[in-house]
């Protein structure tokens, strides 16, 4: 038999086997087909600072962010680079399913305190705010353990550098619909921003 015929048969065989085994739970398939794991880690847990943890993030928040990537109202550099394309292929039903899955995964609490002074400063702002600058206590919205709630993001255990980038994105208003946060982030100095991120990662 000619090599060409072997190739054609091989391609057909692989296509056939592949479609036969593609019978998994819907959300697993969604995750697999969109490579969420490759960036966000299995179960939405990653130690890479490029990608946010999704595990344990409130369901409503995840679904909302996916919609914002899709309609381009979240347009910071990394949102455009990495998430616009992915979200463009998800419908409301997919987003709901993905949000349900990731919100049910156990979140990480692995951050370490590397700088006690910075940690203390972060904790103080998080729990009490900075009154004279009009910075509200983050805790009032994000929760005592920074666990988030409905449309409010979980921040605890999130990667430090990711948090810093998001606070800068709010400041630059490239997360248009984060109204409250655009206001909050605008009032925080760079130094306090680092302190907050450090504190939050260690939660």
């Amino acid at each position: 038999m000619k090599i060409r015929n072997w190739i054609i048969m091989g391609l057909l065989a692989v296509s056939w086997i592949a479609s036969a085994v593609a019978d998994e739970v819907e959300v697993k398939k969604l995750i697999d087909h969109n490579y969420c794991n490759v960036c966000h880690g299995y179960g939405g847990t990653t130690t890479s600072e490029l990608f946010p943890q999704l595990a344990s993030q409130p369901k409503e928040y995840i679904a909302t962010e996916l919609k914002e990537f899709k309609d381009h109202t979240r347009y910071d550099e990394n949102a455009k680079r990495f998430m616009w394309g992915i979200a463009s292929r998800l419908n409301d039903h997919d987003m709901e399913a993905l949000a349900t899955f990731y919100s049910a995964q156990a979140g990480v609490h692995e951050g370490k305190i590397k700088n006690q002074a910075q940690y203390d400063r972060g904790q103080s702002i998080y729990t009490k705010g900075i009154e004279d600058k009009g910075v509200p206590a983050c805790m009032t919205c994000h929760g005592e353990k920074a666990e988030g709630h409905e449309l409010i993001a979980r921040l605890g255990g999130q990667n430090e550098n990711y948090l810093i980038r998001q606070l800068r994105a709010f400041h630059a208003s490239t997360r248009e619909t984060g109204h409250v946060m655009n206001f909050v982030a605008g009032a925080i100095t760079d130094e306090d921003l680092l302190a907050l991120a450090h504190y939050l990662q260690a939660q």
Partner: protein
Amino acid sequence: MLKTLKNILFLALVALALAPSVSFAVPSFARQTGMDCAACHTSFPELTPFGREFKLRGYTLGERQWLPVAAMVQASATHISKVHDNSGVTVMPHQNNPEFDVASVFVAGKLNDYVGMFLQMTYNNINGLRDDFSFIHHSAQDNTDIRAVGTSELFGKDLVYGLDLNNNPSVQDVWNSSPAWAYTPWQTSSLAGGPNNQFPTKIDSAFAQTVAGLGGYLWWDRHLYAELSFYGSANKSLKFMSQGQNSFPLLDGHDNPYWRLAWSEDWGSNSLMVGTYGMRVNLFPDPANPHGATDRFTDTALDVQYQYLTDPHIFTVAATYIHENIDWKASYVDGINAGPSNPTGNLNTFRAKATYLYNRKYGATLGYFSSNGSSDNLLYGVTPDINTTLAVSNKPNSRGYSAELDYNPWTNVRFSLTYLGFTQWDGASSNIDGNGRSPRDNNTLILNTWLAF
């Protein structure tokens, strides 16, 4: 010099004029996935972990495009250290002149959820030089990679399995330490060549676009990659993979094996791969007469790649060591003054590079290469000294380095300035042409423009 500057300015303007309109019009894979080049590349063609996954899964992520076509253009100006040799003969014409180098068209994308391809056709504006230094142009099939993949589970972990058909050993590989996609540097000059034996081993691109290889691979748990492929010359019904290549080495049969084993580990912002690859080919000494005995080349290689990927800092290192054993079973004939002068031989190449990228915009790369091998009077003693008439060397040994600065205003546009230096040239550390030319007289500075859309 003024003309040169004007031409460079013109090229830059063309690039700038095209670029804004392509803010999202990056090549076909980007259009298919809706993602920016940055998702798959640190800096083209180097792949991120996500880019590797995209390739290993057969380029199938995203929506099939009606016309999955993209294009790439490169232009450059080359400055060689000494334009003339010691007798006044021009070694490299078109010194400092901006020249259009190559244009490629890609047909690249998914065919369905399990099959995808990457086909490149290249028009080479400077494929050679005539006696009057005018350019010989040439078009040919370039890299080709067609895959069919499936996904499953093995021992409770993700498994990707695939079939791959390609025309260049290691073009199917996803790491940038193996030959086809390695930094040598990315863009070299079409005018100034390197030593004949810069990368002398067979697996190191000697068969690029002249062979056809079919193989299978497994990618397990995003850790282990294993592949076995078989190569033969791309002729007869596989001629489309070597279209436009006029003469090429002829392999005996279609069962010359290529293998690859790699372990990859990602943690935090780090990604590390340690691997090995190799190939064994039987080659007819005379491609015009593919009968009888063949010479055997056995290549084994080690490679490693490390990436540190954050925003805004990216740091990558890639290195490989290739060893080749040659058995001149067909070419060596005792007592005859042609072909190799020994029945066996060996060659080695070591190559390494390190890149730092800031904000995916500014980059700096340092590269090093060193090739050496067993001595052979007939194979390597080809350059006589003009005074003594003795060969200047009987070894293939070549060594050099590169230093490069990049500016990427957009992910699909790159300007680079590359300095390529040589310290050893085809066995000689001085007097490389028998007339007193030193390796460093061939050092070049290359200004390059690259864009894809």
